[in-house]
């Protein structure tokens, strides 16, 4: 069935370092991908998205890379701050349909001061 998986369940970095969180997806029909941040006790919060016709998209301190050949996407966070500590999920969907999101299991990012 459809699934989105992650390579690492936890990631620990020092404040100020760059973080890279990876995600593998399996549905080649997915054409839209989203990264969410979920802090403890809260719902997921949209970070950045990318369409399948792009291979890179940049936001404020975040960059998402998409490699359709190997069905892989990554989230890069520059100058990681303590406030970035959270669980990060990638999600995939097909635009124009029901827009059902399929989430991966998540990576817990811990930023050490």
């Amino acid at each position, binding site marked *: 069935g459809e699934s*989105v998986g992650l390579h690492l369940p936890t990631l620990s970095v020092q404040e100020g370092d760059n973080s890279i969180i990876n995600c593998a997806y399996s549905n080649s029909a997915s054409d839209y991908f989203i990264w969410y941040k979920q802090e403890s006790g809260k*719902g997921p919060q*949209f970070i950045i998205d990318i*369409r399948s016709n792009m291979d890179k998209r940049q936001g404020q301190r975040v960059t998402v890379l998409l490699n359709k050949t190997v069905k892989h996407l990554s989230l890069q966070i520059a100058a990681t701050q303590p406030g970035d500590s959270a669980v990060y999920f990638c999600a995939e969907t097909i635009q124009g349909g029901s827009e*059902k999101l399929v989430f991966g*299991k*998540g990576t817990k990012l811990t930023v050490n001061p």
Partner: protein
Amino acid sequence: EAEVAQSPRYKITEKSQAVAFWCDPISGHATLYWYRQILGQGPELLVQFQDESVVDDSQLPKDRFSAERLKGVDSTLKIQPAELGDSAMYLCASSWGLAGSSYNEQFFGPGTRLTVL
């Protein structure tokens, strides 16, 4: 800033009891989603509404779960009877649901944490 509201935030119940969760989406959002999130995993869609109609309930355990959105605004998710395996976070999300748009971003509420004893 408009937000998705959910209540209660926490619910503890005994197995075989009935529980209900409430969601009030962002005003004007036509599409409403209920997700279940087991600890350590990503959310999984239970049911999707477009206005008052169910669009997708293929993952909803219909023998014990029900959901309604009678007036196409707020929604209730019910479990009867609750089982130990139902312990999870229940998230509600909403989106504009505009047909023909490139993507309708989903906004999530804070969730209801259910513990079944």
